[in-house]
């Protein structure tokens, strides 16, 4: 027994090293696989309030650009509002208005709640976003997160006052996207925060540069036809049945400040229905 203790004492550095490293890798592996405990995520109260403090300063600097974005969005929404009911106006305007589905079920199935980004990274392989709204404001895991320009991410973890979301710039994020009527799977390759990839678009799709890529509405998180980005470049490898498409993301993740949480009111019903069908 004494020899064992002296053995441990002799190599104490090595043992402490192995112990610590094992603990770290355990944390790393559980963290990537499951939903994290909110006690240690960046959405907890201490880190959240610290981020908020540093963000208050950064807010002043970004005010001008922020105003411009809001102004543009106002203009777009006004256009949408006026074009909705008049077919005459629709024909006159050069810009094609976005189609609004008027269906009694879908009439109010998505609720948008404004929030502010208080922490955001772009230079890792698994980037996350922390926002200043939490369960107190009705935020829940698996809600969508969008900005004025396009899709931003998916909320994964919620505390009372803060939520953390998986950004589009996260290699773990999977999303179905569509170009015209064709769907593909969206992924980020971890290289550039401005571009992402779209795979599995069949080779008979007639696509062009600058075509719009939007959400498919399959996932029950985002509404259909919500902007993700535009085609920057695409190629069809010889012998391949699918395009490799490079997307220019509509959201500028470097300047992300204001976002909206999107909640699908019908999501629970949809998930339950799908679940019961799958189990039959």
């Amino acid at each position, binding site marked *: 027994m004494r020899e064992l203790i002296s053995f441990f004492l002799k190599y104490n550095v090595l043992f402490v*090293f192995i112990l610590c490293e094992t603990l770290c890798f355990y944390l790393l592996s559980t963290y990537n696989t499951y939903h994290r405990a909110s006690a240690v995520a960046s959405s*907890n109260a201490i880190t959240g309030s610290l981020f908020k403090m540093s963000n208050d300063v950064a807010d002043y600097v970004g005010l001008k650009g922020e105003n411009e974005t809001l102004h543009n969005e106002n203009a777009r929404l006004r256009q949408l509002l006026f074009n909705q009911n008049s077919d005459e106006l629709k024909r006159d305007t050069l810009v094609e208005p976005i189609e609004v589905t008027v269906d009694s079920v879908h009439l109010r199935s998505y609720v948008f709640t404004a929030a502010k980004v208080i922490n955001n990274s772009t230079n890792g392989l698994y980037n996350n976003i922390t926002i200043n709204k939490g369960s107190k404001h009705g935020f829940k895991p698996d809600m969508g997160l969008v900005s004025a320009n396009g899709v931003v991410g998916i909320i994964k973890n919620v505390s009372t006052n803060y939520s953390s979301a998986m950004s589009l710039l996260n290699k773990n994020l999977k999303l179905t996207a569509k170009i015209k009527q064709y769907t593909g799977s969206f992924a980020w390759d971890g290289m550039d925060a401005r571009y992402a990839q779209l795979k599995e678009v069949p080779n008979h799709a007639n696509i062009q540069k600058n075509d719009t890529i939007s959400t498919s509405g399959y996932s029950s998180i985002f509404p259909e036809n919500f902007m993700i980005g535009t085609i920057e470049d695409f190629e069809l490898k010889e012998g391949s049945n699918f395009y490799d498409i490079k997307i220019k993301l509509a959201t500028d993740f470097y300047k992300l400040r204001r976002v909206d949480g999107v909640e699908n009111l019908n999501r629970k019903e949809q998930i339950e229905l799908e679940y019961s069908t799958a189990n039959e």
Partner: protein
Amino acid sequence: MLVLDNVELHRLVRPLIYPLIILLLPIAMPGALVIILSMVLGLIIDVFNDTLGLHASACVFMAFCRPFVLSIFRPRGGYEQFAMPSYQKLGLSWFLRYVGLSIFLFNAFFFLVEAFNFRFIHLTLFKIILSTIFCLLLILIHQMLFARTKV
């Protein structure tokens, strides 16, 4: 920390300065204590970055390697007369070699664990080398600005 997280010079460069805290611990400090301290530091950084375990594992690795790095660059008289590894006492070239190798080990471990595969090994290597150079530069600037001249 909060400032540096928002600095992105290039997608291959990740500027970090906190490993310096570990590197500047007293030389005579027992190795096990250094490892535990660096794990705590790494975990604090991780909580802010939503990357639990990533920074911590790299910090622990660097702390484990610290005695070996120190012994590689042992000056002629040994370390007995020096309590802290500072560049004013041990000279700029010693400090550069010591911090350079440590930061390289840190970055190598960090980016390999982050990527967790060898598929984009050339990209990872690129990241390691560029980030090491940049971190070294940043640490040097920090030392020249803030280090007390008379210790």
